[in-house]
């Protein structure tokens, strides 16, 4: 009998520093599996965020750049423009991508840069200790919205996938979730599609992944999964919003 389960070659042996119940590990594994399956490890350059995943390069076995907060899409643009033969992806959280790096992601997507972005949306700033993010849900308590996010004061959560879908430039935009096996399988398919479009030099691709942060949400991992499914999925609709085959 052959092996039924093994670590992707694209993942290193390092033990991750993520909290129990955190979904970064799931996202990392999906990316690594896709890179293995597409056979692109030797020409892939990952670009990490600032946030909990800042040291993600420790968990992968290919070239990596560490970006400044929010600037990964600009770095990916630079790398991909001067080396179009490389496969370049950014991996960014919601504070990184939807707040400080909003300009960079919007313009990269609008130029149709041929790289891939994995966007982790867990509705909170993780590394800095649970502050409000642009994606924090209405009335959700965080350390900087201790009485819950007040929409009248700070507006509604930003739907990044929908916002980027509104751009006229062709692209691949999808939102999936990392909270149940059926969603996780779909998430992997979306990630693979985004990378495939890049390999074919077709378009920019972004996969938003609804994730959990049990530590900063103040929940057990199981409750966090439940909360994400009940509170987030009705607002952050899953699915494929845009692909370059449409039109």
């Amino acid at each position, binding site marked *: 009998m052959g092996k039924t389960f093994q670590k992707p070659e694209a993942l290193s042996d390092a033990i991750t520093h993520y909290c129990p119940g955190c979904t970064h590990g799931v996202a990392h594994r999906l990316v690594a599996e896709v890179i293995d399956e597409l056979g692109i490890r030797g020409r892939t350059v990952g670009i990490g965020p600032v946030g909990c995943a800042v040291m993600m390069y420790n968990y992968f076995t290919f070239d990596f750049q560490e970006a400044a907060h929010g600037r990964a899409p*600009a*770095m990916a643009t630079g790398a991909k423009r001067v080396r179009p033969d490389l496969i370049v992806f950014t991996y960014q959280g919601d504070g990184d991508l939807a707040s400080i790096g909003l300009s960079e992601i919007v313009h990269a997507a609008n130029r149709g840069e041929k790289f891939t972005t994995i966007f982790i949306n867990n509705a909170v700033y993780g590394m800095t200790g649970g502050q409000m993010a642009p994606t924090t849900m209405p009335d959700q308590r965080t350390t900087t919205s201790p009485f819950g996010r007040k929409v009248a004061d700070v507006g509604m959560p930003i739907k990044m996938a929908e916002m980027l879908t509104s751009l006229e430039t062709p692209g691949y935009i999808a939102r999936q979730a990392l909270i149940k096996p059926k969603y996780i399988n779909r998430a992997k398919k979306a990630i693979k599609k985004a990378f495939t479009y890049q390999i074919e030099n077709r378009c920019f691709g972004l996969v938003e992944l609804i994730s959990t942060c049990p530590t900063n949400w103040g929940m057990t991992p199981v409750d966090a999964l439940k909360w994400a499914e009940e509170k987030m999925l009705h607002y952050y609709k899953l699915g494929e919003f845009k692909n370059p085959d449409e039109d």
Partner: protein
Amino acid sequence: MGKVLMKGNEAIGEAAIRAGCLNYFAYPITPQSEVAEYLARRMPEVGGVFLQGESEVAVSYMIFGAAACGERIFTTSSSPGISLMSEGISYISGAQCPAVFVNIMRGGPGLGGILPSQADYLQSTKGGGHGDYKLLVMAPASVQEAVEMVMRAFPLAEKYRNPVMILGDGLIGQMMEPVEFPDHLKVEPSNKNEWATNGMDTRKSKTRNLVKTMYLNPEELNAHNLKLKAKYEQMAREEILYENYNLDGKYKVLIVSYGTMSRVCRTAIDNLKANGLEVGMVRPQHVFPFPHQAINQAASKKSCQAVLSVEMCMGQMVEDVERSVLGKRPVHWYGKCGGEVPTPEEVMEEVERLLS
């Protein structure tokens, strides 16, 4: 190719191509936008990459991403734009990536004005962004020198794995002078496979490269900064560059000036000489590392009664001049800013005032 009459900004763009840099990202800002306009046409002709970024912040990281792949890369901007790029420049310096930045200075602070200035001296020579880092800073005084410096900047950036800045004032960018372009640079960056994220297949390696700036362990960060410091010390040993003017005679005043301002001073020195007053000048061509020793020596001459730092700003380089002269002679500053370029007559008056 013989001499051609060319605007400084355009010549800078052409010089980069001849240095083998076929990648350029930029954001428009007066008075250097002609570089982008020139390269928007020229890069496609030579199969190069041109991209107008959405902001100077984004451009500085496009530079970082490209430099991290080991490709020659440069950008041009002007003072407020360089402030925005300073975040990226700090990261690029920390990550030890080679890149070339051109600052065609305008007056500040804030929006300031668009006319020539040298008010970014301290910003460029003392770091500029956060953290302990330095740039190798070259200060051309003519279009020809700007071309030669741009072409030297790339190999030096690669030698030190550190950003190099060309610090020109608005006039260097805007004026036209005859230029003779040196031959194309044939030197390829030699050691990039050791550090660049150019893809493992590219360098036929089984180990990956990592470009980063974060060292959470204090001992590691200290060691990293010591490594950077050693590079700046090596620059101070190997990259001092300056030009002496009229230092043979018994000069009574020593002028220290760079860039366009130094040309005004040269005319002032010639005129004073004709009037029977000897004045010498040291012109730093690299402002970091700074020619402390040369200035100290020149100031120490018996005949020299005072040292005058002449700048198109409110007195920034004068701090380095004071550190050079070490109290041996009184050090003075003269300058104007906001696009008011001191005339030779004004410099002459200032020298005469010093001696009266």
